[in-house]
C-alpha cells in the first residue's frame, strides 16, 4: 500500500508548486543542477562591512536583482504581474524580494486560482527577525542623523508580517495568512500549520514560504561570539567552509535564500489535474525545553519518531534522510546519534546528506529549501552529495553521500530541522504515483 493511502484523499496533503531563490540557483531546475553537481554558493561577504565583526563568509544574496530575475522569466509571468511585483518591492529590503520571487514561481506552477477563489487561498510565512539589516540601518539613522529621516514605511517594514503581506497582496491571497516562527525549524513548523488549515477545510490551497533573515553585521557578530559560525579556517576558501560531518567542521555558514511551496489536498489537486511533486506524509514538532543552543538527542529522536507515527509508517520505510546538518561540531554529532537511536540498525543502510554543505545555513528558510531539495531529488531519482568530505570524523559513520551525487530511487524520505531554542521539527515526504 502507498504509505499515505490510509488517509482519506481529502486529508492527504500534497505539494503542487515549488520555487526557490538560493545562492546556487533561482529556479528549481538550476537549484537541482547545482546540488547534483556539488556546487558551493558560499563566498566572501560581498557588500557587508568587515572591519567590526569576525564573520567573513556566507551565502550572500545582497546583489540579488529582482528586476533581472523577473525579466529572465518574462515569458512565464505576465507583464502586469512583473509590474505589480516591482512596484510593491520598489523600496523593499532583501527578504520580501526573495520571498516574492520564490512564491511567484511556486504559485505560478500550481496556479490554484484557476479553480479556487482568493478567499480560499492562504499563506503561512516561516521565519522571524527578517528585515534585521533594515532595522539596524534605520536605528543608526534615528540615533546618528535625524529621527524623521528613517525610511518612511519603517513602521510597517519593521514587522515580519509585512514580508508576508507583500506577497499575499501580490498573489491576491485572501484566506488565512499568518507568520510562524521556529528559528531554524521555522519552515517545517509552518508546514504543520498549513496542513492543519487545509485539513480543517479553512482553505483549498496554502502557500508556505521560507523567508530569509537578512544577514547584517550585528547578528553575524552575535553568532560569532556564541562560537556558532565558521570564522577561522576557511575565510580564504569559503566554498570549503560548510562541511557537515567532516572532522574539520567548525560552525555553520549563514546564508540567504527563500523557498516556497504550494500545498493542497490530494483530492483537490487531482480534481484540478495539478502536477504533484510529493505528499506530506507526516510532520512533528517537539521542544527540548531548553533555551540553549546545545542540541539534545532526546528531543530529536522524539521528533523523528512522532513524524513517523504521524505518517503511520515504521522506520524501515525511510529510504533517505535530508539532515539538519549545519556543520557545527556538536550539532552534527548529536544528530547522527539521534538518527542511530531513532532508526536503529536501519540507519546503517539509509543515505543521509546535507543540503547546507552547498547553500550554507538558510536559517528560517532552511527547512523549506531542504524539503524542496528532497522533493526534487525524489522526482529525479538522484541523491545530491554532501560536499567537503575530506577528513572523516571517526565518530560519524553513516552514509553521507560524500562529494559525489548518485542515482537512487526512493519513495519515502525524512527531512530534519532542529533550531535554536530546542525547537525540533521533522517532515516525512512520500512519492505519489500519478
Amino acid at each position, binding site marked *: 500500500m502507498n504509505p499515505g493511502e490510509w488517509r482519506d484523499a481529502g486529508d492527504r496533503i500534497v505539494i503542487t508548486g515549488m520555487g526557490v531563490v538560493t545562492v546556487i540557483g533561482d529556479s528549481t531546475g538550476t537549484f537541482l543542477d547545482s546540488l547534483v553537481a556539488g556546487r558551493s554558493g558560499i563566498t566572501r561577504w560581498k557588500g557587508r562591512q568587515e572591519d567590526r565583526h569576525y564573520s567573513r563568509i556566507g551565502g550572500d544574496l545582497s546583489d540579488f536583482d529582482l528586476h533581472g530575475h523577473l525579466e529572465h522569466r518574462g515569458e512565464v509571468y505576465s507583464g502586469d504581474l512583473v509590474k505589480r511585483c516591482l512596484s510593491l518591492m520598489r*523600496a523593499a529590503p532583501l527578504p520580501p524580494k526573495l520571498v516574492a520571487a520564490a512564491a511567484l514561481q511556486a504559485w505560478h506552477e500550481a496556479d490554484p486560482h484557476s479553480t479556487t477563489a482568493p478567499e480560499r487561498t492562504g499563506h503561512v510565512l516561516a521565519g522571524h527577525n527578517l528585515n534585521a539589516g533594515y532595522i539596524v540601518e534605520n536605528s543608526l539613522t534615528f540615533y546618528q542623523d*535625524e529621527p*524623521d*529621516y528613517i*525610511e*518612511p*514605511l519603517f513602521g*510597517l517594514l519593521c514587522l515580519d508580517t509585512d514580508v508576508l503581506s507583500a506577497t499575499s497582496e501580490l498573489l491576491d491571497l485572501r484566506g488565512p495568512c499568518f507568520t510562524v516562527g521556529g528559528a531554524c525549524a521555522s519552515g517545517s513548523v509552518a508546514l504543520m500549520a498549513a496542513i492543519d488549515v487545509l485539513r480543517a477545510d479553512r482553505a483549498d490551497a496554502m502557500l508556505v514560504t521560507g523567508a530569509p533573515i537578512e544577514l547584517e553585521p550585528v547578528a553575524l557578530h552575535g553568532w560569532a561570539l556564541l562560537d556558532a559560525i565558521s570564522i577561522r579556517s576557511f575565510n580564504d576558501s569559503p566554498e570549503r567552509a560548510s562541511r557537515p560531518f567532516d572532522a574539520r567542521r567548525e560552525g555553520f555558514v549563514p546564508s540567504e535564500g527563500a523557498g516556497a511551496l504550494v500545498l493542497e489536498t490530494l483530492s483537490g489537486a487531482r480534481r484540478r489535474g495539478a502536477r504533484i511533486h510529493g505528499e506530506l506524509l507526516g510532520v512533528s514538532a517537539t521542544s527540548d525545553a531548553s533555551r540553549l543552543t546545545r542540541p539534545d538527542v532526546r528531543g530529536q529522536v522524539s521528533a523523528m519518531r512522532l513524524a513517523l507515527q504521524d505518517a503511520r509508517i515504521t522506520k524501515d520505510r525511510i529510504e533517505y534522510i535530508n539532515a539538519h546538518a549545519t556543520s557545527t561540531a556538536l550539532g552534527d554529532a548529536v544528530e547522527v546519534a539521534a538518527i542511530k537511536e531513532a532508526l536503529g540498525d536501519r540507519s546503517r543502510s539509509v543515505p543521509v546528506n546535507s543540503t547546507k554543505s552547498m547553500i550554507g545555513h538558510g536559517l528560517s528558510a532552511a527547512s523549506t529549501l531542504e524539503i524542496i531539495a528532497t522533493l526534487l531529488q525524489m522526482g529525479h531519482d538522484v541523491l545530491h552529495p554532501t560536499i567537503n568530505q575530506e577528513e572523516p570524523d571517526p565518530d560519524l559513520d553513516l552514509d553521507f553521500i560524500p562529494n559525489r551525487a548518485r542515482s537512487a530511487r526512493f519513495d519515502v524520505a525524512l527531512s530534519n530541522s532542529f533550531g535554536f531554542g530546542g525547537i525540533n521539527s521533522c517532515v516525512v515526504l512520500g512519492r505519489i504515483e500519478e
Partner: protein
Amino acid sequence: VTREQIFAVVRKNIVNIVEGVSEDAVSEEISMRDLGADSLQIVEVVSRSMKELRLKVPRTELSRATNLRELLDLFEKAAARRP
C-alpha cells in the same frame, strides 16, 4: 533652496512613487490623492522629499496640508528656518 527646487524634488518623488503619474500632471493646485496616491505613498513622498531637502516639518503640521501648494508652503517655511 528655492520654491522651484522644492517643487522639483516633490514632483520627482511623486512620479517615482505613485504609479502612472507623469511630470505634467503634477501642479501646485492638486493633491496627491487627486493623482491616485494611497496613504502609504503620500507618507513616502513627503518623507523622502524632506530627507532629500534636509528639512524638518513636525508631523502635526504636515497633516494640515490639503494640496501640494500648502505642502510646499510648509517646506519653504522650514527651509527658511534652517540655520
